């Protein structure tokens, strides 16, 4: 997973970078059983920031969609939805990202964080949280990654370049018919051995 930072707050932070507390952004990513991610980003702003955001992107969801597609070229995105709450000066932007998980040659499922040594907190067996800072735009992002219930052996490892990644297993369906092959084979061999004994040993 490439770092998903909704950088559209850049323009509204052109001032007071050093003086203001960081903007806080929450990103929740729920991975389904086939490795796609449902992503939801939410954020609240002050009055000034809200006005600038509305003018730049908030009132132009199509541009927001294109911007996101440009920022995340490694995935296919669809099912975009933007919900604004003018009263609270907050928004929720959600979309679906295909191909969030990769499966390596050994069949391990992998989610890349694209970061070195991020602060990762385990919330539950299948839920992890990462907090990281984007200093240039002074945005603090909290990412919550929710793995599918069928995910097993979730481990935090590093790739060849030292970047942290999640690795896990998912039961691979082989099809119900495949389950009959080995019992059938054993049954056949048992019958042949039995027949051999009856015909040649106890004849």
């Amino acid at each position, binding site marked *: 997973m*490439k770092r998903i930072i909704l950088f559209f707050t850049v323009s509204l932070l*052109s*001032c*007071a*970078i*050093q*003086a*203001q*507390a*960081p903007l806080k952004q929450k990103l929740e990513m729920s991975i389904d*059983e*086939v*490795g*796609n991610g449902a992503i939801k980003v939410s954020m609240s702003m*002050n*009055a000034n920031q809200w006005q600038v955001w509305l003018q730049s992107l908030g009132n*132009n969801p199509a*541009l927001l969609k*294109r911007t996101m597609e*440009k*920022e995340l*070229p*490694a*995935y*296919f995105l669809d099912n975009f939805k933007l919900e604004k709450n003018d009263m609270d000066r907050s928004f929720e932007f959600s979309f679906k990202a*295909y*191909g969030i998980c*990769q*499966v*390596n*040659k*050994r*069949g391990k499922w992998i989610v890349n964080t694209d970061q070195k040594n991020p602060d990762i907190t385990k919330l539950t067996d299948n839920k992890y949280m990462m907090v990281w*800072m984007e*200093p240039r735009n*002074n945005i603090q992002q909290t990412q919550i990654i929710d793995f599918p219930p069928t995910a097993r052996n979730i481990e935090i490892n590093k790739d060849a370049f030292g970047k942290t990644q999640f690795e896990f297993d*998912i039961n*691979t*369906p*082989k*099809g119900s*018919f*495949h389950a*009959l*092959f*080995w*019992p*059938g*084979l*054993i*049954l*056949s*061999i*048992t*019958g*042949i051995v*039995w*027949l051999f004994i*009856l*015909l040649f040993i106890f004849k």
Partner: protein
Amino acid sequence: MKKLSLPLVIIVVGIIAAGIPFLFSGSNKASLDISINSIPLIMPAAHKVYANPDALNGQYHLFKAKITNTGKKTLENVVVKYQVPGHIEWTEISTTGIMIPGQTIVAVCYPVFNPSVTSKTTESVERANVTVEWEGADHRDIIEESFTFKMLSRNDFAYTCIPSDEILGWGDVYDNDPLLPCFVTPNDPIVKYYTQIVQEKVLKGEAASVTRSPEQGVQFMLGLYEATRMSHMVYSGTKGIPQNLQDVQTLIQHVRLPREVITGNTGLCIELSVLYASVLSNAGLDPIIYLIPGHAYPGFKIDGQYYAIEATGIGGEGLGKISSAQEAYKLGMEQLDEFIKATQAGDPRYSIIDVHQLNASGVISMNLDDNDYLRKKVDEIAENFTPKHQQVIQYVQQPVSNQLADASRFPGPLSFLIPTGWVTYHNPAPGFPLLIAQITSPDMVASVSVYNIPASSAEEAMHQLKQYFSQMGLALQYSISGSNVQGTSANYTTTFRWIGKIAPMSGGYRLVAVGSDNQLYSQYTGVINSVYNSIR
């Protein structure tokens, strides 16, 4: 016979059970759905950008394939490959260990073209072939797709690849502008040779070792202008043709490379800007190209200060006036002032190409080979670099402090001069009323903060400020000596280092603090000290 019936039944049942998976394998056939997003054109000049998944965040690729397993069978070792006949052999993009029913994989192709692609001087239509295969795939099951794209010539620059029905404004029409540094070739042996000759024959070594000095930088830029003027370089246009490519409508501009501008002794505004950027970069300066509606001009930046020159001032005998280096510099700086006003007003048509910053983002120039013929051409041109042709470069030194003299002054107690190009924000943080203004450098690394603090002493004012900072999660450290204050403010990722002055005003104290990110402080020392010394 009766006693044999039971094992025979067991054998038959076992064979049937073991054979069922094979009997039903036909209905369990693999089925993949593929959709491909491809780009309509490739610019050979930018071939290193297309090849690099990290360049400009990986947004420039040949195609992106979305492959979904729509069958009921789990596939193993799914391999996506592509080729561009005549350019790229079959190359694997991705291998997926297993692909369960319903799973989608995304394969993004960053094509690695042979560097010789930059010798391509005509455009052509090329075909890309894509295949998806997996372990045990029947020959008939393998997915094969292909699409065509236009391969431009090495000199062609397409301004956008955004589909015409998606174009929203000026920025979209010139969406490919960040690729312009691909034409900036400081490492071209011919450009290096030209730079050496300009330093030797025009500047007489005066600015031969350009360091972090604005005066030397401007001196060098004027020398370069003088070199182009003495060689009778003329301003001339090249072809720019609007083209329709699939859903994209774009202007394709023929951009002569810096070596071609030098040896051809002619250039369009963008070509002259690219030439200046190449030579300035080769000389150790930080080149900038300013893009404005219908025009471009070059310059550089040092210590957060921006400089510009109107490179087309050379004009040509047929075009009327030929400006002197001083006139071209003056005009460039005037245009820069207008540029800054326009960007402050939020006009998206005015943009900066920061060559080195884009280089760091993976926008790298093409490799060009040395060429004896072109070196001889440079030698011929350099014969014009004689004292009898050369005007005296009467560069009136404009150190940062003098530049500040032309700049506006922030009003009120503890007024100070605002450096050229810096942007002023009044009441930038409504939740932090003590901060009444903030003035930031164009690259937003350095800034001046102005605080009005209701307090009865300087110490009390600083203490109050520290409390405010603390409430916002920022740690403020400072020391006061008379009216001079210095310190740092930090959150857990960055530290901002500053110096300033504090003085009484009606209703409290005013603090003016100027500084920058701690890691970049040394680069901004000149301008920070200049602002600090101008505080009255």
